[in-house]
């Protein structure tokens, strides 16, 4: 699948934003975060800016951007439509949560939990868009939803840790960051292990129905140059670098942030802030690389008609 930059930026940025929003909505009402309005302003602004930038970016890959509002209509059948509805609906409790916290000095439990619920629901809908696509077996499996949720939580908690280090470290939350990173890494490794070992869903034989006559090989393509199908669904540039990119994603996105998350324990203050900043940036870059791979490694069934043997 073609890794469209607008979609990868969208899922990475809004994933981090929703992860951060969910953590703020759950932790703040229970007094686990500083009640300082300035902390609330910075943390919520960071979450909402990431979410909004991601959502706007997602519109850049549309062919008819001015009709984007129509995407809210088919929530009964379409996960993309549900994602849009959930994304917009989440702004309401998130906005009320922010107004209460920043301007009125009250951290509302109801608004916080509703905002967190909306954030989780939106990321869930995003992941279900991919999870529901049968023609892409590397997406149509049970690892995809937990991966999206865990990676959103991980990138969210890395940014939360940064804001916390600046405004008021909470030592009792120190253990949470490496725990979430470890969980996300375990799920990512599980996903890679699964897609590497999964049996073929479809073959050139089943795609053409000619498998019973013997091995099916493409003799002549229907067209001489690449068409939309090959550009969009037949993308294969990154696959030869997949192993190296996976190592880069593991080291940058998970390994280094994991190590850096222990800096506040041994060296609070300035070094802890620098470490948290580096961890948040590296973690986000790692998720970006991982998301790029998620697309580039995914084979679409239509490639079976163009010389592919299995998906």
């Amino acid at each position, binding site marked *: *699948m073609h890794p469209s930059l607008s979609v990868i930026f969208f899922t990475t940025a809004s994933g981090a934003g929703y992860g951060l929003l969910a953590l703020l909505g759950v932790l703040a009402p229970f007094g686990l975060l500083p009640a300082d309005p300035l902390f609330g302003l910075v943390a919520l602004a960071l979450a909402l800016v990431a979410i909004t930038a991601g959502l706007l970016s997602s519109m850049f*890959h*549309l*062919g*008819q*951007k001015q*009709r*984007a509002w*129509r*995407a*809210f*209509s*088919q929530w*009964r*059948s*379409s*996960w*993309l*439509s549900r994602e*849009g509805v959930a994304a917009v609906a989440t702004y309401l409790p998130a906005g009320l949560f922010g107004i209460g916290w920043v301007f009125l000095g009250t951290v509302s439990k109801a608004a916080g939990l509703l905002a967190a619920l909306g954030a989780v629901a939106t990321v869930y809908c995003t992941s279900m*868009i991919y999870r*529901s*696509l*049968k*023609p*892409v077996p590397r997406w149509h499996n049970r690892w995809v939803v937990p991966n999206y949720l865990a990676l959103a939580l991980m990138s969210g908690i890395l940014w939360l840790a940064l804001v916390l280090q600046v405004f008021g470290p909470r030592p009792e939350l120190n253990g949470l960051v490496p725990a979430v990173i470890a969980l996300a890494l375990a799920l990512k490794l599980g996903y890679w292990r699964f897609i590497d070992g999964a049996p073929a*869903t*479809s073959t*050139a034989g*089943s*795609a*053409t*129905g*000619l498998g*019973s*006559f*013997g*091995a*099916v*090989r*493409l*003799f*002549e*393509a*229907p*067209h*001489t*140059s*690449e*068409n*939309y*199908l090959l550009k*969009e*669904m037949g993308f294969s540039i990154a696959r030869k670098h997949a192993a190296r990119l996976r190592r880069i994603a593991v080291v940058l996105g998970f390994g280094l942030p994991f190590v850096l998350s222990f800096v506040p324990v041994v060296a609070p203050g300035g070094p802890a802030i620098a470490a948290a900043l580096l961890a948040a940036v590296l973690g986000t870059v790692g998720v970006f690389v991982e998301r790029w791979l998620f697309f580039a490694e995914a084979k*679409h*069934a*239509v490639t079976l*008609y*163009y010389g592919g043997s299995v998906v």
Partner: protein
Amino acid sequence: MTSLPTGASRKRLGLVIDLDICVGCHACAVNCKEWNTGGVAAPLTDLAPYGADPDGVWFNRVHTYEVGEGVTGRTVHFPRSCLHCAQPACVTVCPTGASFKRAEDGIVLVNEDLCIGCKLCSWACPYGAREFDEDAGVMKKCTLCIDRIYNETFDPEDRVPACVATCPASARHFGDLGDPDSAVSRLVAEREGFDLMAEMGYAPTNKYLPPRPRRQDAGCTGASARLAPAAPAAPGGLLGWLDRLLSQ
């Protein structure tokens, strides 16, 4: 509405494509392009049609495969277009209601005035039936020539999709696959027509007929089992010696 129609008619219009007969001439693809670039989905945009890498929207593509090895190997020409599935995920994933399946005859269409060009429907189709029009910013697909098959200004025999009308080998058939007594349904039953990628669960309406068994014995074609040598046997003696010498 991108939910699938409930209480839909039993009618399921579609195509039956005979892989035994198709000669791979691409006439179906060309006539499809010709008709539909002036039809409801017009134009079927071409990008750089005379450039080094021409690209464009086609509803019908003809692939050619080699199948099997040795004496049982064969060349199979394989036209590929929308299968108008009974369970079309391309319809249900659509966020805007642009993609829909008609209740009355099962034809899957795109309302281009509602399409936002998110391309998700093309991701949801395992058969590559949908092609995005970069120029118009919307998705396009086979309409089963809905502007021909119900066109009362045409003679009845012409009320078939352009690909069917033009096929010089009669490898393509159009009809109601929801009616077990229709000519196309009987053809499918008789020739053991099959679904493409049945494992995906899309329940395609269009069916493909398999190549018939290869005729490997000379007797099947009426030719004599062994041909007489075209050249006389090599001469012996002096002339033979000269022939061998000069042939070295």
